[in-house]
Structure formats: C-alpha cells, structure tokens
C-alpha cells in the first residue's frame, strides 16, 4: 500500500437533539443525541425508512435540522452551508461527474480549494493509488465498472483530506463478493487515513464486521449505541434483539431475581433486579441440544436446515412455540433426526432479559 495521505486531524461529531420533519407529518429523525469519537468507524444501522440517510444528510448539510445542533470538531455547523463544511461524502449511486474524466473527478475538490497544479496532480495520483485505480485517470465514469466507480467516488472524497467521511450505503449496489472485498479495503483505508467515518447501512453483517461502534435506528430514534459485540450479545430492546441476527424470545416476567415464563416455568438467568413483564432473549447458537429430560425444556425436533458451517434446528415445544438452535456442522454428514424428542439448555449468563417498555 502507498503511504497514506496525511489527513487533517479527525474530528468528533456531536448531534444534540437533532430532529427532522418532512412536509406531510413524517418525523424522519426524532431528537437524536449522538457523539462519534474522532477517528471512529461508526455505523448507522436500521431498516428501510428509519431515518439513517436523513441523519447523515443533516451532518453533511444537505438537510437543515428543524431542531437541535450539529457540532463537528467543536464547531457548530448547524447553520453552515454544505460547501463550507469540509466533509467527504460517498453516495450509493456514486454521483460521479459524468462529463469529466476520473482524474478530473478526483481533482474537483482540490480545484475548488485553489490547490496549485503540481500539488493537485500529486494528490490526485496518491488518492487514486489509495483506492487502487492507477492507470484509469483518463477514463470517463461510463467506462468503469460499478466497483471502479465507487473507488473513484471514494478517492474524490478523501483527496480533500476531510476530517469526517460520510458514506451512505456505499457498497449497496455491488455484488456480494465485491462488497466483502470492498468492506475490507474501506476499513483499511479508514484506519490508514485515521478519518472519522459515519457509515450508513441496512446490512447488519456489514455493520457488525466493519464498525467500531454501531447506532441502531428505528423510526427516527436511536435505539442502542454500542460496540458490535455489545449490540449483538447484549441488546437492550426487543427491536435491536430482533433486528440483528436471529433470536428466540420467550415472554414472561421478572420475579424475585429470576425469570418466570408465561407458562409458569422458572428459566435459568443470571440474577436480575426489579420486577415486571419482560422477555427472555436467547441467540440460537447459545442454545445446546441435550437428551430428553436433561435440559431446561423438552421439545420435538421439527426442522433442520443445513447452512454449511452450521446447522439450524427448529425445536417445537409442547405448547407449540418454537426455538431455533444453531449447532456447528459436525462434519460427519449426519444431521439430527426430525421427530426425535430432545432437551434444550443454555447457560444463565447467555440469557438476556428485555424489559417491556
């Protein structure tokens, strides 16, 4: 890899009760509070329409916040127009200048800043090297593949050495293989540049794999902010638990430091304070299948799907509810038999209690 472009020092981003309403009564973003640390890879994750793009666009300055403040690097940018914000932006649609060559596209931001020609040429070359696009300088966007266009968009954004880089589903239009390769590259590039990166995606695997921290959004609100492992292992709301990965939810209540399921059964959890209605959340890979009677609950194995590295079993309980259990593929080619009666158990510390709001 060529030596990284020196960056202006990465900036923190602070959102204070930022709100955006669209005509027609949609509250796209609802009083969001968020602090992104300098140099952090931060992902905004959530289902379609939850307000990720709108949040990003308010940071970039394309949308004005109806309430709240946007502070970047200690500077209040709430009322600063886009072209004075000095941020790199990468769009899902690439948004390259179709009438300009690759080199001209990348040089654009430098030209706006009045950078002298020799320095401009050096920085364009260096940025193109960073995204592995040497030799494409004279091409036009229409003559590039989707992946190459996205690299140009990335080079165009980083060449101005922004303290903050904003990406809205930048890999969304790429096929799976290429997307995974680009995930690794983008992460490496972000580290090398040390830039603060806000990354919007609705792909949870992408967010889990790339981020230092993730903010999970739902209907305009931030449900939970935390490290990927935190979000996955310790979801704080039902929405987060169900949105990320697969999960079993058992309704019941917290009583006397334990958890009592709706059917009256006391289920193993690490000790829990308080009282009240709640759900027990269990990841399928935290459950273990044991012989009948040796587990917490008995059930009948009703389905097995082979996932390659793992096997996903469905265990149907006496009351008709189902539990998903994931086991490592034993590699012997033999799956458990449908219809067999068996027990399911888990470690108390793997059970997460979600309080009803």
């Amino acid at each position, binding site marked *: 890899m060529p030596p990284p472009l020196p960056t202006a020092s990465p900036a923190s981003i602070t959102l204070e009760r930022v709100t955006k309403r669209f005509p027609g009564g949609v509250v796209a973003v609802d009083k969001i509070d968020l602090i992104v640390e300098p140099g952090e890879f931060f992902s905004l994750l959530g289902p379609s329409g939850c307000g990720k793009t709108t949040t990003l666009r308010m940071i970039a300055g394309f949308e004005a916040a109806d309430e709240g403040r946007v502070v970047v690097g200690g500077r209040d940018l709430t009322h600063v127009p886009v072209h004075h914000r000095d941020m790199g932006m990468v769009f899902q649609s690439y948004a390259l200048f179709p009438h300009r060559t690759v080199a001209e596209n990348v040089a*654009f931001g430098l030209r706006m800043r009045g950078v002298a020609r020799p320095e401009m040429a050096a920085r364009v070359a260096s940025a193109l090297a960073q995204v592995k696009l040497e030799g494409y300088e004279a091409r036009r966007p229409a003559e590039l593949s989707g992946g190459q266009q996205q690299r140009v968009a990335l080079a165009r954004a980083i060449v101005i050495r922004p303290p903050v880089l904003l990406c809205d589903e930048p890999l969304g239009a790429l096929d799976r293989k290429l997307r995974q390769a680009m995930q690794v590259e983008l992460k490496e590039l972000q580290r090398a540049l040390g830039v603060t990166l806000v990354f919007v995606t609705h792909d949870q695997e992408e967010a889990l794999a790339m981020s230092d921290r993730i903010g999970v959004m739902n209907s305009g609100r931030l449900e939970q902010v935390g490290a990927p492992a935190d979000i996955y292992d310790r979801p704080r709301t039902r929405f987060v638990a169900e949105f990320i990965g697969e999960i079993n939810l058992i309704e019941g209540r917290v009583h006397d430091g334990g958890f009592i399921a709706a059917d009256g059964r006391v289920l193993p959890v690490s000790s829990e304070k308080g009282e009240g209605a709640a759900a027990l959340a269990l990841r399928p890979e935290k459950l273990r299948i044991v012989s009948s009677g040796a587990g917490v609950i008995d059930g009948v194995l009703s389905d097995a799907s082979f996932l390659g590295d793992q096997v996903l079993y469905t265990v149907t309980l006496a009351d008709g509810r189902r539990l998903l259990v994931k086991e490592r593929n034993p590699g012997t080619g033999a799956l458990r038999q449908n219809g067999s009666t068996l027990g399911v158990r888990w470690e108390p510390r793997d059970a997460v209690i979600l309080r009803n709001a």
Partner: protein
Amino acid sequence: MRGRRASLGQRAYLVANGAILFFLLAPLAVVAVFALNPTPFIQFPPVGVTTRWFEKFFASAEFMGSLRLSLEVAAAVVVLATLIGAAAALALARGGLPGTRFLTALFLAPLMLPAILTGLALFQALQLAGFGRPTWALVVGHTLVAVPYVMRTTLAVLSDFDRRIEEAAASLGAPPLRVFFEVTLPIIRPGVIAGSIFAFIVSFDQFPISLFLVTPSRETLPVVLFNYMKFDLDGAIAAASMVSILLALAVVIVIDRLVGLRATMRF
C-alpha cells in the same frame, strides 16, 4: 432456428427503416431535381442540369433581403428561446414552485395551439397596443413558439438527472453558482443545445406567425416564397428551398461543432 428468425426480424426492421427514410427524403429529392432541371415547370424525367434557378434566386434583391431578415430573426430567437426555455425548465424542475404542472402546461401550450391562432392573437394585441408590426414583434412571435421546444428537451434531460451529483460537488466545496456552471450546465447541455437547434428551425421555417407580422417592405423568406409561388411557379422556388434546407443543415452542423453536441451526448 433462432438465428434465422432474428435475421428475418432484422430484415423487416431494415425494410421498415428504409421505407421511413424514403418517405422522409423523397420530397427533398423532388425539390433537388426541380431545382436543377432547366424547364420552368416540374418535369420528370429531368431534361438536363442547370444552375439558372440558383442564379435567379441569388440575383433577386427580394429573396436576398428576406433571407437576411430570416437569418437575423432566427439568430435572435435562438438566443432568447434558449435562455428563456432553459431557465424556465430549470425553475419548473427544480424550483419547488407551487402549481408546477399548471405552469408546465402553460409554457408548453404554444405547442398545442395552431400557430396561425398565435399569430392572429399577437397581431391583434400589437394593433391594440398601437405598436404596428416592428421587427421585434417577429422575434417575439417566433420566440413564443420556440421556447416550448427548448423547455421540452431541457426538461427531458433534467427528469433523469441524479441530483446527488450536484450534492457531491457542493460537499467538495463548490458554492451554488459553481455547482451550476461546473456540473448542472454541462450535464443538461445536450438537451439545451438540441432545443436551440429546434428553435432555429422553428423560426427559420416559420410561416403562419410571420404572415401576420411582416410588412410588404420587410418579409421573411417563407413569406416571400409563398407570395412568389402564388404568381410564378418556377425552379427559383425549388432553388430557394434547397438553399434554406442547406442553410439549416449548415447551422445545425456549426452549432454541433461549436458547442460539441456529440461530445456531450456521449455519456
């Protein structure tokens, strides 16, 4: 099987296109033959080749004066219609104005209205206002019917314009005016230029509106041709037609060369 069927389809396609081209170009051929044939009436097959009709056309002060006027008016119309049409298209597509659909229909209305009505209305308005029939009235009349063409072609380009491209430019530090001149304008240019070429042709060829706005001492080429035809129908008419076709073609080529229609159409 599939290959044969495809080639059959291809052949039908070629035949259909050939027929359309023939249909469009045959009148040109007739005019060309007429213009070069020495007899003063339409005759087929032609009996020879002569340049006498072209000489007659170029020697006529009346023809030359009207050709000059037509070109001057068309030049002014191209500039005005392009500015107004492109600006109006931008405002309609971008302005977020209330009643955008109504305004679009209003601007495009001269396309639907028979030009002869537009001409009559203009004539009456000018009379009422006591302006008579000044040359600028010709320019105004032609511009009125030329603007919708520029708007149409510009709106077409704007309708699939990805506005993120402009946002990208802004995020890279370009203030609004620079975004417009460095990004928006180059991208919509092919539509604007196509519209300005239409504007030229609409004005240069304009007859019904001109009819109401010319004075006997100051007529445009189509009006002069029409009047000439009422009394003599000789090869000079055909020669004049050939000249105006070639002139229109030349203008299209010059505009193309100057502002590079093809180069900007490439993406």
